[in-house]
Structure formats: C-alpha cells, structure tokens
C-alpha cells in the first residue's frame, strides 16, 4: 500500500487514450469506455476473491466459475419472484429487489463455497495438478446440478425497469446499469481496500499472501483465515454472477466456465495474490474487450490474451507481483 508503484495505474488511462484516435468519435469512445469500465468492475468483483485464495494458500481453484453461475441462477429465482418490484419504474423499488437478490446469491454462493473448500479443495492442498482436476470436476458437477434445479436452457434475466435505457452525456449514450455496475464495483473495491489496509484481518491476509509459514509462526491459524477468504471470495463471485447475468440479461449453466477464462487472465495480469493488480487487470480486460469488439470484432477474443502476453513481457510476474512468490 505504501510507496505505490504508479506505472501500472497509468496503463488504464493510457489504453483508453490510445484508442481514442482509432475510434474517431468521442461520444462512441465515452460509451465504450463506460461499458469497458463496467465490465471490468464486474470482473474485478469476481476475480478479487480468487486472487486472494491463490495468494494465501497457493490453491488453483478452477471451480470459481461455479459460484458465478450459482449467483446468477439464484438471482433469476429471487428477481422472478419479485416481478412487481422489478417492473416498477421506481429506482427504489428496483433496488429493493436487486439488493436482496444479490444478498441471497452471495449467501448461497458462500454456503456452497464453504462446502467446496471442505470437501473438494482441502484434500488437495499443496497438489496443484490435483487441484486443477478436482476443482474443474467440482464445477462440472455444480453445472449439472444447476441444470437439474433450473433446467439446461438459457434463462432471461432482464434488467429492472428503471435500470434500463441510457443517460446522455452530450452525444454519448451511457447505459444506466453500467454506471450502477461501476458504482457497485467501486464500493466493493473500497471495502476490500479498507479491510486489507485498516484491519488486523486484512493485515493477516496481506502477510499470509507473502509468507504464510511466518504468519503461522506468529500464532495465527492461517487455514481458518483461508476458509474465511474462500467463503468471502465465493460470495463475491456470487455477487459478480448476479451483475454479469444482468449485464448479459440472460444466464446459462456454462456461464461460469466462460467467465473463468477472463478471470484467470485478470489475475495473471494483476499478479497472483494482488487485489490492486486484479483491479488494474480487470479494467484493462474490460476496456480491451469493448474497444476491440467495436474496432475489430474478429480479434476481440484474442485481444485479452494478447494483452496478457504484452503485460507479462513487461512484468513477468504481473503488474503488482506479491513478494515471496
């Protein structure tokens, strides 16, 4: 937190400014930039838990996508049951529907995360290959269970009435929901920053990411801390799933696996275990996806991998490498 390295922070505005001449129109650029930031913030909400899970216990959880899908599907049920509230054109009514949906999704994802850690991750601590295989297996089983509960088909997750449409900044159209997503992401980041820098639990997490053996030697049970971080990370993935589902306005059981690819690109760009790095990585990935989707749709899929390669050529351990790793 101290002596912050500002160079990676400059990447986000640099990328945004670099594409401005290519796009040509300022209004389109504003629209794409806000869309990119919104996507980036949602990805950050999902990725921030995973990067801490890796940093703290060296656990490669390829099943993180399950919590994303779970959160989104839970939201379809909660919001579906609150049709009167979501169809209202009052912001307050809409928020009163969306926030409980988020809370329930986070709660369910956290509970499943707790079981996932206990029965799937814990037996394979320290065994990376097994971690990859068993967490992917866990995600596949989870997806099948989602199909059993909600069915295999795509389910619509329409935005509540007042969140639809756009605001106009000059000639630039900015979707209201994307602004909300940026706001929620900023709140989540601010909360994480506060916990990590101002509380003893946060200190322990930061210290554990650097040297978990020393944290244990100081008398702290790092496994309990890890379980806590895993559960919070799962809950955040559930929240991210709700936001991603509303962003896409539909959900499919495989959505977690689809988003997983982006998440891993983000935490590799950010530096494994780094929350600040995950934010930079998320914003870069969100912006890149939107800019290339507009400028060169055929290379949009490849663009984030190219971004990751470019960042790794500059900083092989990610933009904010965590010590002792």
């Amino acid at each position, binding site marked *: *937190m*101290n*002596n912050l390295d500002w160079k990676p922070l400059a990447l986000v505005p640099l990328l945004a400014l670099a594409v401005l001449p290519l796009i040509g129109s300022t209004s389109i650029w504003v629209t794409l930039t806000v869309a990119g930031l919104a996507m980036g913030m949602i990805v950050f909400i999902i990725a921030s838990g995973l990067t801490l899970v890796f940093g703290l216990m060296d656990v490669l959880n390829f099943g993180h996508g399950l919590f994303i899908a779970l959160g989104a599907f839970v939201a379809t049920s909660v919001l579906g049951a609150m049709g009167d509230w979501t169809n209202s054109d009052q912001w307050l009514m809409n928020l009163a529907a969306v926030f409980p949906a988020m809370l329930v999704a986070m709660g369910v994802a956290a509970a499943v995360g707790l079981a996932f850690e206990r029965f799937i991750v814990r037996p394979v601590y320290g065994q990376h290959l097994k971690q990859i295989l068993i967490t992917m297996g866990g995600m596949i089983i989870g997806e099948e269970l989602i199909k059993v509960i909600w069915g295999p088909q795509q389910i619509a997750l329409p935005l509540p009435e007042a969140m639809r449409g756009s605001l106009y900044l000059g000639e630039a159209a900015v979707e209201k929901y994307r602004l909300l997503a940026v706001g929620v992401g900023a709140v989540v980041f601010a909360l994480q920053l506060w916990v990590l820098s101002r*509380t*003893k639990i946060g*200190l*322990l997490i*930061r*210290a554990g990411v*650097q*040297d978990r*053996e*020393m*944290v*244990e*030697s*100081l*008398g*702290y*049970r*790092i496994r309990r801390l890890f379980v806590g971080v895993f559960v919070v990370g799962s809950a955040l993935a559930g929240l991210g799933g709700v936001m991603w589902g509303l962003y896409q306005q539909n959900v499919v059981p495989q959505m977690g696996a689809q988003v997983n690819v982006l998440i891993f690109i983000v935490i590799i760009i950010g530096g494994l275990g780094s929350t600040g790095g995950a934010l930079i990585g998320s914003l870069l990935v969100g912006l890149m996806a939107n800019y290339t989707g507009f400028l060169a749709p055929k290379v949009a899929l490849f663009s984030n991998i190219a971004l990751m390669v470019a960042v790794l050529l500059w900083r092989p351990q990610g933009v904010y490498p*965590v*010590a*002792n790793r």
Partner: protein
Amino acid sequence: MSTPYQASNTGLFAPQRPRQPEAAKVAHAKPLQVPPKAEPLLTLQGVETHIGAYHILHGVDLVVPKGQLTMLLGRNGAGKTTTLRTIMGLWQASKGRITFNGQDVTHLHTPQIAGLNIAYVPENMGIFSDLTVKENMLLAARQASRASQMDEARLQWIFKLFPAVEKFWNHPAGKLSGGQKQMLAVSRAIVEPRELLIIDEPSKGLAPVMINNMIDAFQQLKASGVSILLVEQNISFAKRLGDTVAVMDNGRVVHAGSMAELATDENLQRDLLGLTL
C-alpha cells in the same frame, strides 16, 4: 591459540578438513555430556525428522534450561535449522518427543506451539516486506488489534534496543537494510513477553556494530528472564552470549554442556567444530 577465525573476527565455520571423517570422529570420541543443572524449559528426546525422502535428524537430544541462553552450534548441514523448524512444528517429527514446560508439543500445529509463548525468528527473518515496520510489529502483538493497543512501555524498550525500528516505523519493511530487517525480526519476536525465543542465525550478514547492538539486546533479554535458543555460526557472538551449548553434527547433538567449558577447551573445539573459539 590464535586462528584465522579469531583474527578476522568473522567467526564463520569453514570446515577445512573432510566432513565425513570429522563427523565420525566426533560422534565416537565425545560422549553426550549432561547439560547444567537448571530446570528444563524445552526438551527434545530422540527427535527424528524426515523431509520427503531425506532423513535429516537422527535422534536429537537437547535441553534448553529456563532463563538461560542456549547456543546451538554446528557446521552447515548439521541439522540446526531443521531442529528449530521441528520444534516449531513447521516440519513434523517422525519419531521422538518434544516437551515444553512439561507439555508434550510433538504433534501440535505451529500456531498452537507459538501460542505457548514461543517466538521464532527464521534464518530468512520472515519479514513481511510489503507491510510497514509498524504493521509487522502489530501482527506479532497478538493481543492488539490496533497499533495504539500495543504495550507502549515495551515498545519504548524495544526502540531503545533497536532505534532503527522507531526511525523507520512507517516505512515498508522491504526497504530496510539486512541489519535493520534482522532488528525488526527480533523486535517482532519480543513485542509481547515470551517464555522462549528461538532465533536462527541472528548475526548473519550483520556489520560488527550491529552485532554488538544485537549482543546487548540479547543480554538484556536474558537478564529479563527470557529463555533463548540461538543457532549461530559466529563464534565470537556465541562465546559472548551463551550459557549452555549444544553442538550438532550429522543430525545429532554430539556435545552438550556449558559454553564456558567449550570456550576454554581447545581440543574439544577442534574435535567438535574443527576450529578454536
């Protein structure tokens, strides 16, 4: 008798003779001596440790008496660090028994062992480089959730022992020099009262003036009644501080007794360490 080690005052063990024959000679020539009669705080009985396929400790017997400073000496690879890590539960003993204050701690987990008021400073110092000096200290102060809750009088005492800790209080620990990091590591270990300090090579890489500061600090700690187990390769350091000594070779304690006795017996030093103090 003067030796190159004394002349340079570096005190580093640098075996000049083939290692295996020396080890064999020590193991057979010198029976294990009974440590001084003081109430034992930490006891290791026949402790064996395996790391993967490697058998590192071959039955370590060691007693750390209460209120004394015990030096653990030996050549590189003798098993000193492994012994400390086994005591702390960072590596599990595969055989034998470790007791602390009469309690069997052989199979306890590291946080439980640390919770018995044992502080450990590893050879790499274990400094959290991304955290500030203050945050490093706060982590070690288990009773405090904020810096303002740390024992102020104790902090002032630590600041007197190690002024660099106060000077760089809000600086990232990663920016400290090697000596300052070592001071922070020891400060962290004593930020709350501990019964036993286990420290792995505190003088490693330190300038002579810093070594003197460190010796003063350990003497004050000893005077305050804390028991200390130090692994050390700096002979001068060991001689000035140690009350009792245990010498390891090939994963065993091959000599245990008083430091004064070892410091005055040149033949014993040659047999055990391949040099004189």
